């Protein structure tokens, strides 16, 4: 283009366009990243270790003891099971698949109904009080009803988790869908974009940041719900083991199950966050 006026600064100044990728700098950056990401966690755990080894109460084992027990409980199985113990395969996997299935169904249902409610005032008016009433009944209190109607098996647990998760996704979806700017919606209608494409091409992407926020809350809820659902008529699962350890005052085991929940939650949430990063790259960049 108009090169006449350009001084030869380009070569001299690569500017921010050429980030350094040298080995040393790269390592330094990585370690700085790790320091930011996990610094606070490391400090907290260290403090916890100090505090618990100083105290002598049986209720607060040290983090090291918990981690050691964690390894013993889950990773001392036979080699042919990849060193996973029965607790890992029998309880953890059982809970995980209940949770994931319930979560998936709950999210799908929440997004579908939430979108509907976000779009149609009539639907909203018919269902508002019912939705509010149903989601007001604490999940734990409704568990007996689930058992009554759906029995005591995994089907009931999955349905129960889906039910509990769906409200969070539903409410956030409805709110996200309802706050899409009118001009954007009008564009889709003006070009007679099919309803399906309006939904998948405009409404859902535009509401996606809020839907995903709901799904993150829902993920937390799903873990809580799977644990709760395993409090009754269960024979295995994280919740079952946790409540039993608690009842029998097996404090170290109890802490170990809690650590497992924390780690699971962290892993699942990281997966969700990576997905979110992919889906919402435009959103983040547009807001910078």
């Amino acid at each position, binding site marked *: 283009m108009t090169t006449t006026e350009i001084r030869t600064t380009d070569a001299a100044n690569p500017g921010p366009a050429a980030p350094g990728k040298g080995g040393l700098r790269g390592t330094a950056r990585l370690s700085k990243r790790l320091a930011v990401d996990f610094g606070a966690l490391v400090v907290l755990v260290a403090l916890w270790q100090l505090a618990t080894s100083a105290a002598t109460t049986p209720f607060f084992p040290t983090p090291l003891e918990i981690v050691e027990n964690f390894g013993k409980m889950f990773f001392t199985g036979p080699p042919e099971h990849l060193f996973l113990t029965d607790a890992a395969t029998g309880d953890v996997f059982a809970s995980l698949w209940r949770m994931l299935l319930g979560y998936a169904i709950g999210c799908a249902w929440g997004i579908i109904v939430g979108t509907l409610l976000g779009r149609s005032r009539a639907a909203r008016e018919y269902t508002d009080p019912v939705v509010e009433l149903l989601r007001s009944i604490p999940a734990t209190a409704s568990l007996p009803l689930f058992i009554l109607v759906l029995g005591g098996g995994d089907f009931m647990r999955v349905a129960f988790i889906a039910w509990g998760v769906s409200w969070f996704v539903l409410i956030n979806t409805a709110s996200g869908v309802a706050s899409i700017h009118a*001009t954007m919606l009008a*564009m889709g209608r*003006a*070009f007679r*974009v099919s309803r399906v494409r309006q939904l998948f091409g405009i409404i859902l992407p535009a509401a996606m940041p809020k839907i995903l926020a709901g799904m993150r809350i829902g993920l937390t809820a799903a873990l809580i719900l799977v644990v709760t659902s395993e409090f009754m008529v269960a024979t295995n699962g994280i919740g079952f083991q946790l409540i039993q350890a608690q009842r029998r005052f097996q404090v170290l085991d109890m802490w170990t199950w809690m650590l497992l929940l924390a780690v699971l939650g962290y892993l699942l949430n990281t997966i969700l966050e990576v997905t979110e990063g992919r889906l919402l790259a*435009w959103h983040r960049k*547009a807001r910078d």
Partner: protein
Amino acid sequence: MSVTVPMTATRSAVDAMLQVEGITHVYGQGATAHRAIENLSFTVGPREFVSIVGPSGAGKTTLLRILSGLLTPTEGTVSLVGEPVDGVPEGMAMVFQDYSRSLLPWLSIEKNVMFPLTRTEAGRDERRRIARESLEAVGLADRHDRYPWQLSGGMQQRVAIARALAYRPRLLLMDEPFASVDAQTRSDLEDLVLSLRDRYDMTILFVTHDIDESVYLADRVLVLSRPPAHLVEEIPVPIPHPRDQITTKETDEFVDLRGRVARLIRSGGQPDGGGSR
């Protein structure tokens, strides 16, 4: 939803493409009610290019929204080729005044332009080709992989125009489409729209604040009054086509017409202002 703009304008010019009858629109109710349009009627023939001018807040955007079927008027009817409009008609495209909000921020500008094309039979490659062509026409082909928020205001507006053009509408509604575009690009786009009108037999309604532009482009200029908008005057523009940005604007006819429009607008819709010349 049932009305379709015919693919070719085979009907005689007497047949109205668009017929607006006694339209009144009131926003809100009670104390805060606002009467935006008052008993507005006019007709647009097939392939006609009609400019709409009028003071800010007159109700031009409101009118376009009603014509596009996005908004139901409080009173009156709109007919397209004789049939009442009760939804967004087929074969219509719109360039929104609020262009930055009509672009989807999660799509590259090429994908934005392709977005409405899935309704056509064109395959993916064909759609991409059409999109590139339209972006080329508005001077943005080299930016096709950028996102709307990476573009300047004028560029975003041009993306919105490219999207409407790529759609190959029979009826094109444009709401101040060149407001944020520089003079040179604006001239180019004006001529582009005129040539596309001929090539694709489009009927165009064009809202603008630029009096020169309204006359240069149009077969007829509708002047709206201060709100509540009613029709102050319809001014036919009998200047032959093709027109030229420099020579046409130098003709007496053009100068005369633009003066009429200017005075009408200045008088704010008092009929005497329009008739005095």
